[in-house]
């Protein structure tokens, strides 16, 4: 058993082969992606002008990113006006230190966390634990994988790779009691255990689905309600957000809310949208007394300067994963990085390393299903191609470069092209039966591992054009 589920890695080939050979995982992936993709389509269809609204959302993001420095300053001022504190974290390391320091200053010992991919990205939990702060993931799926010592395998369904049996096993071991493998009772056990954690918690850590510059608001979207609990029970609230999550105005928020849940699951809205503007006000009964907002760069500004800027429009809805025929066959852990699926194939090379993730930009048929599912219509195929180009610049593959160059040189000359067609025909003739070739030489052998290859026609179209004239 390998540990692709536990640790980030660069072994795309090994991990994807393992996933393909795992029938339980295959079943889980099909169930999840079928359901959520159908929801996505139904969700957009039910919205009269969903395509225009998605364009509008995209334009808001484009505008914001093109003025990002200004909006960050505005956001900071708004949060401060409300009595919140803003922290600037250039790197993951700085972000971890900031959060640990907040915890220590406020003397917090028990942290509860609402699902946040940004905190996954900065590997926050080990840092807090090393500082003596107990951390509990409270999204039920995240809780399962925290107990199992694993990483999320989907943006919105982190434990999709688990079955009811494996969840029962993991939780039984953790709690030291035998639990039945029934989803309902397992979830209720989760409720009981996590309620205790909320009762004790003095620090609530969340991400932010959105942050609003003009009002200093952070927005959390959940279906379970753990985002509400995390911001209501503990006395200190720390929200960690990538700088790309800011949007300009309060009235821009519903544009994204209308699209986020529809794109992710097909719901009109997720069950809970928690819109927090500053700490608890005088006279209020509950809510955090201290509010901290951590703004994280961690490579984003570098991407902002490049043609890959569009990737910063992502609202982490997971729709591209559900739509992707590759994701649905290999699952999230195969991708190796924090983010998986089509958007992960862009983010991981950009933020981790282009050189060490050579497969991710190529492991896509460029079918475009991701873009048509994406609430902000991110042109993922284009960026994958852009990454391929970047690979050639960074680490040219001489043989491949030569082959494509030769091919292009041939194609630019009709006589050479004609000659090449003839050569291929002669060369492959012996191998064909009934118009199909069962075994190809060279790189074509990879093709014929799976399926036959068509034999070149006896006469090309251009040769037959004469009879047609």
């Amino acid at each position: 058993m390998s540990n692709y589920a536990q640790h980030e890695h660069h072994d795309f080939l090994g991990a994807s082969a393992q996933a393909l050979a795992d029938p339980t995982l295959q079943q889980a992936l099909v169930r999840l992606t079928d359901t959520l993709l159908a929801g996505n389509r139904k969700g957009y269809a039910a919205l009269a002008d969903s395509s225009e609204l998605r364009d509008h959302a995209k334009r808001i993001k484009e505008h914001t990113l093109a003025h990002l420095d200004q909006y960050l300053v505005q956001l900071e001022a708004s949060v401060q006006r409300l009595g919140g504190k803003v922290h600037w974290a250039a790197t993951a390391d700085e972000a971890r230190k900031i959060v640990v320091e907040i915890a220590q200053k406020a003397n917090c010992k028990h942290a509860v966390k609402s699902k946040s991919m940004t905190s996954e990205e900065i590997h926050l939990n080990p840092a807090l634990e090393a500082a003596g702060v107990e951390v509990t993931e409270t999204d039920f799926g995240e809780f399962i994988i925290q107990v199992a010592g694993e990483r999320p395998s989907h943006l919105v369904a982190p434990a999709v790779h688990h079955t009811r049996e494996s969840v029962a096993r993991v939780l039984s071991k953790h709690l030291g009691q035998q639990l039945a493998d029934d989803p309902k009772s397992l979830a209720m056990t989760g409720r009981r255990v996590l309620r205790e954690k909320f009762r004790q918690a003095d620090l609530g850590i969340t991400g932010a689905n959105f942050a609003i510059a003009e009002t200093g608001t952070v927005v959390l979207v959940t279906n379970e309600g753990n985002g509400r609990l995390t911001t209501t029970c503990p006395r200190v609230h720390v929200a960690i957000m990538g700088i790309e999550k800011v949007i300009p105005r309060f009235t821009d928020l519903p544009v994204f809310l209308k699209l986020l849940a529809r794109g992710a699951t097909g719901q009109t809205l997720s069950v809970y949208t928690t819109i927090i503007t500053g700490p608890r006000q005088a006279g209020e009964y509950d809510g955090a007394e201290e509010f901290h907002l951590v703004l994280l760069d961690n490579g984003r500004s570098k991407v902002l300067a490049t043609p890959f800027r569009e990737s910063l429009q992502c609202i982490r809805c997971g729709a591209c994963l559900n739509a992707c025929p590759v994701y649905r066959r290999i699952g999230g852990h195969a991708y190796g990085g924090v983010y998986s699926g089509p958007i992960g194939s862009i983010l991981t090379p950009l933020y981790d390393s282009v050189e060490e993730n050579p497969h991710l930009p190529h492991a896509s048929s460029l079918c475009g299903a991701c873009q048509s599912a994406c609430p902000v219509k991110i042109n993922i195929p284009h960026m994958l191609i852009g990454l391929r180009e970047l690979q050639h610049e960074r680490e040219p593959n001489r043989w491949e470069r030569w082959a494509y160059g030769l091919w292009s040189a041939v194609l630019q000359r009709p006589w050479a092209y004609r000659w090449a067609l003839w050569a291929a025909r002669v060369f492959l003739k012996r191998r064909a039966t009934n118009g199909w070739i069962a075994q190809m030489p060279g790189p074509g052998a990879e093709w014929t591992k799976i399926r036959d290859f068509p034999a070149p026609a006896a006469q090309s179209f251009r040769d037959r054009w004469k009879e047609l004239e």
Partner: protein
Amino acid sequence: MTAREAFLERVKSAVAEGNRAGGAPPLPERGRVGYQGAGADPVERFCQELIAAGGKAYLASDADAPLRLVQEILQSLNARRILLTRGGLIDQLGLAGMLRRLGLEVKTLDDLGADSREEFFQADVGITNVHRLIAETGTVVLTSRPNEPRSASLLPPVHICLAERSQILPDLFDLFDLFAPTASASKTLPPSCLTLITGPSKTGDIELKLVTGVHGPGEVHVILLAGSAGEG
């Protein structure tokens, strides 16, 4: 240069470098794009959407109906410990007194000290007013304020809320138009916590099997009164 200034400087130069020739696009105006509205009958649309999200909707047609409906819900749940927020319809209807007369263990905010969070953890049912309802999505909107703690609609396993039909807004966009960064005659500042609740708490984390109530209330009941007064 401070860390903050260096941070912003990096972002600023990245913005400039990445902006394609032709400059930065302006902030777009939405116009009517994406506005769904509630159709001919906002009440019906609200109820449909709430039910689709797994909630329950009740129309109170006469003056006695609200209490009767609350009572029926509580009885069917066998609920004993009831937690009430203050103001609005809850006060207008005198709900606390009526429920006490039924022999239920009722806690209102007046009964709670500043440090009685445990009462919220122990309650069987939380009953609240609402700020608005949204027909398009079947959503209950709550604002945090001294009379309306966030926990009342969050910690008890069942949430009942009372609303008037006039509190229904057709579209999600209408809600956000009520607020602005600077208060004016027609707009107020966003509250410290604006909560949108669309149905009961849900999880599908195990094999996509839908389970309600994993964290928030597993049941959401909305009782709609015929009245036309604004929010309480």
